[in-house]
């Protein structure tokens, strides 16, 4: 696991975080993000609560295309899928041009460019919380993911990294994930 330079983290007095969406999204899409946040809160003392107030939210989530004003333009289908900022910026941006799959088994998708939304959301939340990219291919924080791939469970590398920053959830029993439980990539991707 790695951290951003300077090891930024959410301070102790800001560990109950809110998140909001820039777009009008369906409950099904919002549920994907709720599950993604839950994976990180299960292993840390952090909590995440949805709010209707995008501008007041600690974490601001939006789908954008092309140049969207932060100096990191998106590039259309595949390529760059999303990006997120280090603590305590809170911005999580996803490429609105992607073919996001929010339910069902993305691995059986007939669409070569299908991308599993929850997999990408879990990764980007890791950045929001202070994790950088990992060389461990089993880690959520590994930088690449093939299309038609689902990878949503935190690896031991992710858990060690995030618990270094925030400590452990008192209810965490150490069995959230192991390498063998990962849903591994089954597609050659592009």
């Amino acid at each position, binding site marked *: 696991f*790695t*951290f*951003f*330079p300077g090891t930024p983290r959410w301070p102790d007095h800001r560990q109950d975080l809110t998140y909001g969406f820039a777009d009008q999204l*369906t409950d*099904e*899409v919002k549920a994907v993000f709720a599950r993604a946040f839950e994976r990180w809160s299960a292993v840390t003392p952090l909590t995440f609560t949805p709010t209707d107030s995008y501008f007041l939210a600690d974490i601001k989530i939006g789908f954008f295309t092309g140049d969207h004003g932060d100096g*990191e333009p*998106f*590039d*259309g*289908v*595949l*390529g*760059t*899928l*999303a*990006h*997120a900022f280090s603590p305590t910026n809170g911005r999580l941006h996803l490429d*609105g*041009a*992607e*073919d*996001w*799959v*929010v*339910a*069902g*088994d*993305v691995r*059986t*998708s*007939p*669409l*070569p*460019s*299908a*991308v599993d*939304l929850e997999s*990408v959301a879990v*990764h*980007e939340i890791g*950045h929001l919380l202070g994790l*950088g*990219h*990992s*060389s461990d*291919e089993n880690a959520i924080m590994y*930088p*690449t*993911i*093939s*299309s038609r791939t689902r990878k949503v469970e935190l690896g031991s590398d992710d858990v060690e990294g995030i618990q270094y920053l925030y400590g452990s959830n008192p209810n965490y029993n150490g069995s959230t994930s192991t390498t063998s439980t990962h849903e591994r990539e089954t597609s050659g*991707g*592009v």
Partner: protein
Amino acid sequence: RFFPNITGLPPLPFSKNGTLAPWDAFTKFAGCRSGEKRDGLAKLKQYFNEFGYIQNAPSNFSDDFDDELEKALRVYQQNFNLNVTGELDDQTLQKIVLPRCGNADIVNGTTSMNSGKSASFHTTKHFHTTEH
């Protein structure tokens, strides 16, 4: 575009503008190595610049496979647990064209992925010089 369930997806064949991904064109550089010049290598350098492997980007990258590109490749290969060849071998290209997070792997010239664990990104060359 959101697909609430798999059955809602369009059937194959499906493509947009005839291509799947913006980096697919890099596969044409297979086998390219230091000293060669290939049309479009500048875009690969832009890729490495975007993800932190080439620092201090010039206003225009050349299409030359120069020392800077080889150095970037070596660090990339180390970070992604690939054979460190410094060449655009198939294994490396297959990794490069994959969809990925837009966050850089190397921020402000430092990395703590694999390549940052043995020696720092910037001091590798100096380390070898000192040893000799």
